[in-house]
């Protein structure tokens, strides 16, 4: 049981990543590979700040800001230097590897005897219950924030940018600026996920972000498939779908591990799950 609870908690930790991918991939239609780098960046900044200053709010805030900077850089390269979005993301992701390594000064920082976000809610005695409540609380905050943001005039302009650029420019929106801000927000959220997972697992590692973009994408798509089956497509439920998606994805991986699959195959399984989610609807359409 604890095994599955920790899978659910990991899933909740990845919700912020799922929202990041939802914004870049679904709202802006930009395949943003920066994610792998900005996720690690969030973890690295958190580990460095916690080791030096032992301040959890500062670690979370600076991770978010670091992700925003990384996303803005990708957005700038894409829109102002006119480099293909995929390539722009890969460039920043590659550059971030060096940034992350130099920030940490080594390839791994453990968070032993340091305060983390999971020390909050100290009135809850049970360890797992406290961690779960904190992650759930953060998830609720994120949903509230995003469902508000996407409904504002700014949010409508953001959603329209990814949908019909011609229309939105005719409506007086600077689409380049909007894309930069969108990628900034997406990567900021991704970095927050990196921060949470680092605090949950108790260490930051230079390789923690490898393939994370696929995990995010798979989660978003699982969530979408489920929401489509339930025939709910309002913005709020699409966000809820992302949460369900990340949790379900982690549960599938947990089941795979409990069946005795070598953890070395975890990325392969991740890729196969995403392939299945992506391709099955297409196969069904043809019949």
């Amino acid at each position, binding site marked *: 049981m604890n095994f599955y609870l920790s899978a659910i908690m990991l899933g909740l930790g990845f919700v912020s990543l799922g929202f990041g991918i939802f914004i870049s991939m679904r709202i802006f239609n930009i395949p943003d590979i920066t994610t792998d780098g900005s996720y690690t960046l969030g973890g690295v900044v958190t580990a460095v700040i916690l080791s030096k200053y032992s301040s959890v709010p500062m670690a979370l805030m600076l991770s978010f800001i670091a992700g925003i900077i990384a996303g803005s850089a990708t957005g700038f390269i894409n829109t102002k230097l006119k480099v293909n979005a995929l390539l722009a993301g890969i460039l920043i992701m590659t550059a971030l590897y060096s940034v992350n390594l130099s920030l940490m000064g080594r390839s791994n920082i453990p968070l032993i005897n340091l305060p983390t976000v999971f020390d909050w809610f100290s009135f809850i005695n049970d360890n797992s219950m406290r961690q779960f409540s904190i992650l759930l609380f953060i998830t609720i905050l994120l949903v509230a924030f995003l469902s*508000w*943001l996407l*409904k*504002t*005039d*700014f949010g*409508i*302009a953001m*959603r*329209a940018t990814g*949908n*019909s650029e*011609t*229309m*939105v*420019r*005719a*409506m*007086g*929106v*600077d*689409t380049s600026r909007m894309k930069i801000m969108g990628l900034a927000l997406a990567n900021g959220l991704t970095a927050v996920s990196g921060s949470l997972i680092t605090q949950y697992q108790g260490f930051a590692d230079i390789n923690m972000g490898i393939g994370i973009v696929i995990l995010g994408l798979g989660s978003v798509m699982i969530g979408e498939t489920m929401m489509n089956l339930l025939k709910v497509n309002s913005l709020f439920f699409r966000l809820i779908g992302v949460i369900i998606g990340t949790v379900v994805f982690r549960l599938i991986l947990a089941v795979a591990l409990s069946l005795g699959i070598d953890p070395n195959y975890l990325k392969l399984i991740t890729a196969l799950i995403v392939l299945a989610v992506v391709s099955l609807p297409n196969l069904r359409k043809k019949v």
Partner: protein
Amino acid sequence: MINLTDINKTFNPHTPQEVRALRDINLHIANEDFVIILGSNGSGKSTLLNIIAGNILADKGQLTIDNQAVTHIKDYDRSKWIARIFQDPFSGTASELSIIDNFRLASIRTKKKGLTIGINNDFKKTVRDKIAMLGLGLEDKLEQPMGTLSGGQRQALTLIMAIMDDAKILLLDEPAAALDPKTSEIIMQKANQLIHEFHLTAILITHNLKDAATYGNRVILMKEGSIAIDKKEKVTINELHNWFS
């Protein structure tokens, strides 16, 4: 309202694909003019419209709108004067957004898109009343995604969206070309009505000579990137036929 002075535009300059789309265009369009632009494909009509809208910038020449120099101003900044109706109904609206979201964006075309929620019951009522004027029964479908509507319905809504916020100029690039004859007629009539009712300066590109003879107060024929004929009055359909023979 709109002044073009010595406007030139060449696509792919110094290559074998070089096209001189506009040559020394001088054009003065007065306030509340309704100009019809005719011309065969490749005559430069759309380039002219796009230069006014700002999504193509001229190589040479000056452009003023409402007595302000706008030659180097970006398309999204020109939206404070200009509303556009595109040939493709899908270009003028965002399909994945609901009708009400599309209208919200249109209602703040000239304003800042800030962090406030603008869709409230008052706004919904205003939009519902405006859409009801079309008589298409769309006023009860505000939450429906734009993409679920037909091309004609979308084009009709785009017209209403154009007047949701202050507009001085309406640019119409073959707005009815992708529609069936009946819908096309309804759209043109509605456009004409709005142009007069809101005292808009309008430019309409069309291949339909009947529309060209019916609407507007000025007809321009473009040929090979230049203005071949410029009549500052209505032109009969017979005369228009002669222009093309």
